[in-house]
């Protein structure tokens, strides 16, 4: 088990009901962690519509997770 800090933005933040949490997980990758949290919290966005960020940088879904990593799942962006 690892401890991962997860931040939520926009629709995910609203669906989770909070902006940040620390989770204990056995997930090996960013993808596994999202899939786990999606089931737990009922997120409506499929993983294909998101990107992952690890430690404030874009990362592939296959990125391995280490103890203490900071994860963000990025909904489709719409700046401007």
């Amino acid at each position, binding site marked *: 088990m690892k401890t991962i800090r997860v931040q939520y*933005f*926009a629709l995910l933040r609203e669906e989770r009901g909070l902006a940040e949490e620390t989770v204990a997980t056995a997930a090996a990758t960013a993808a596994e962690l999202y899939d786990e949290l999606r089931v737990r919290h009922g997120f409506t966005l499929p993983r294909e519509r998101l990107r992952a960020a690890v430690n404030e940088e874009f990362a592939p879904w296959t990125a391995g997770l280490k103890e203490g990593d900071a994860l963000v799942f990025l909904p489709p962006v719409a700046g*401007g």
Partner: protein
Amino acid sequence: MFKISAEPIHLEALGRALHDVAAGACATFEGRVRIKNDGRTVQSLEYEAFAPLAEKEGARILEEAAARFGILKAVCVHRTGRLALGDLAVWVGVTSEHRGAAFDACRYIIDQTKLRVPIWKREHYADGTTVWVGVAGTPPV
């Protein structure tokens, strides 16, 4: 400089930061909250950003623009928080010797910002509904 700002954007200071005696051209872009989007009447907007990554990705966009177009200086500032009709949401300014590079780089920066920078927009409509733009089927709150 690419900045996420929770405070209103002050154009004068930004304009001064771009000045350069080598610059013959300055192209700017202002994105403002407009009353209609996709046929719906907008009352206000909310922007939310993952600021540390937004500023990193924004800085990369500015570097790309400098490398591609040979400009002198470029600035982009994007608001977060609640905005009313007419409020300034994003400002891009580019200086260069000649005008072609300034226009091309300014457009590149706003286009790439909208595509790549982790910023999200919730539109609040006159009919009381609200949507996270770009996310189909957002439930009303």
